[in-house]
């Protein structure tokens, strides 16, 4: 069985007019154009199976949105291929479009001046949803996303969170097979984010909807995505599960030691470099020492034993690497495990 979505060597170049510098530069730019080519997507390949929920991650300007615009058939690829259940989204746009739903969190597909309900009607009509299905879907969304209170208000009067919920519903009302969510949690408060996550989780659970999710909030990813694709400068850096990402890139852990004051002197001792088996003491303040060690080189139990032996320990804890730390490191230092 071949994958539902297959992206192969995908490239998108943007050509920008490069202005001439110096005197009469702008005049020269008008007549002799020099172009500057920017490869926003530079040979991206991946395959996604039916029912998967994949986090498509990368720093600002990595090429995420551009990839999604090509997968949705909005933008023509410069090179490479995209196939969504065998269809070329650019050439067979209407067929592909009929089975997809899209949220671009920074914009809205809702009809600004009209009540929210009107936008849903429009989606229902455009995708040929039968009246019975429409009613059922709408009821479900009103329920799950709590739209009841503002469904009859003009969209321009909605808060960002309300609007985003409306957008999600509009993107999924016709039960698309593939859903692209480009930053669906941007600007939402904690409660609204949580609601959104629950909704995406619920939708994915049935296994009938394939979801590609782009976000800068890694809590979304930890909660929702079994698999992530990480890109930067238009290239895939990592494709696999979140655990694997951590294991590959988060090679260091931290031992946090709370020291007890010395019984005789009443002073809290400091951990010396000699007693940590070559690990790095990151900080030492008010009786709390943070020791960073490479898990593959230093065994935790040895480190703990050594500390226990030499100091009065009140409490010990190991801080596992979080995704945010891992991703921050990859974004800033590049791909060297």
């Amino acid at each position, binding site marked *: 069985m071949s994958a539902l979505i297959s992206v192969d060597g995908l490239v998108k170049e943007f050509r920008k007019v490069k202005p001439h510098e110096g005197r009469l530069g702008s005049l020269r730019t008008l007549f002799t154009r020099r172009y500057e080519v920017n490869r926003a997507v530079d040979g991206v390949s991946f395959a996604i199976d039916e029912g998967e929920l994949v986090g498509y991650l990368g720093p600002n300007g990595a090429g995420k949105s551009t990839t999604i615009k090509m997968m949705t058939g909005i933008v023509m690829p410069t090179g490479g291929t995209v196939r969504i259940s065998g269809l070329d989204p650019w050439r067979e746009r209407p067929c592909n479009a009929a089975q997809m739903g899209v949220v671009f969190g920074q914009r809205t597909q809702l009809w600004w*001046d009209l009540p929210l309900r009107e936008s849903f009607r*429009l989606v229902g009509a455009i995708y040929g949803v039968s009246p019975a299905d429409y009613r059922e879907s709408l009821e479900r969304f009103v329920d799950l996303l709590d739209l009841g209170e503002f469904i009859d208000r003009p969209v321009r009067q909605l808060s960002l969170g309300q609007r985003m919920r409306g957008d999600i519903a509009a993107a999924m009302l016709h039960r698309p097979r593939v859903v692209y969510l480009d930053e669906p949690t941007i600007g939402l408060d904690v409660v609204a984010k949580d609601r959104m996550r629950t909704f995406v989780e619920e939708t994915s659970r049935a296994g009938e909807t394939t979801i590609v999710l782009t976000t800068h909030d890694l809590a979304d990813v930890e909660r929702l995505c079994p698999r992530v694709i990480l890109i930067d400068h238009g290239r895939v850096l990592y494709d696999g599960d979140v655990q694997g990402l951590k294991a590959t890139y988060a090679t260091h852990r931290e031992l946090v030691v709370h020291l007890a004051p010395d019984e005789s002197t009443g002073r809290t001792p400091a951990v010396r470099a000699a007693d940590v088996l070559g690990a790095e003491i990151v900080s030492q303040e008010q009786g709390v020492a943070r020791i960073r060690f490479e898990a593959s080189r230093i065994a935790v139990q040895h480190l703990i034993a050594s500390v226990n032996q030499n100091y009065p320990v009140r409490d010990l804890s190991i801080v596992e690497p979080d995704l945010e730390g891992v991703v921050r490191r990859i974004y800033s230092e590049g791909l060297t495990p």
Partner: protein
Amino acid sequence: MTASAPGLRRIVVARMKTAMTYRQNVLLLQVIVILNIFILSRLWTTLFEGRDTVAGMTLHTFLLYITVVNLQSWVFTDLTVNEYTYQRVRTGEVVFDLMRPIGFVPQMLAHMAGSHLFMVLSVVVALPVVLVVGTLGAPASPAALALYAPSLVFGYVISVLLAVLTSMVAFWTVETSGFTMLYRLINQFFAGTMLPVSLFPEPLRILAGLLPFQSTGYIPATIYVGRTEGDAALRALAVQGLWILILALATTAVWHRARRRVAVQGG
């Protein structure tokens, strides 16, 4: 195409409802058109002083022409959809139009149909006032009416195609408002809304003959008042038909190129 009919119909309805929420805007447009007809009627009445006919028309026919051509132009040169397309492209919201299973051009046509239907309603509402400030009357003859109907439809189709074409400028440049204003001025002048094309000085008249605009205003309006009749009217209809063909081909070609250019700002 048939599968997209319900969607397109829904766009028409939504567009009309949107126009409804901007009633004041429509009211203002009504005032502008009524003033326009009023000023032109006064002006031409004064200019007729001491003459029986101008450009082969009696004063009454002339004023009827001015009123009819301006009422048509009121609906035909509606820029709502140009403005809408421009905003969609500028903000990148056009992604949502481009991701629909319905083509972008049919969607634009539906937007226009909705906007124009509302305009027609507002024309009907304003007719009593137009009757006072301008000149309203029946077509010159049953034959004139029979020719006017297809000519008006052709003129409408040409206007719509021109609007689609000019809207697409937004895909090439984000600075379209100056262009749109200039276009509207040229369109209205060469359509003959200020004076009939037959009164243009020679070079302008030749130019008008080479442009599609007189097909949207001057031709149907002169058929209505009986100034263009018989063979001349049939020839005029043929010219309109030719323009539809040319503009339809141009629209297809331009859209084909525009689609490849779509980069979508921001994201």
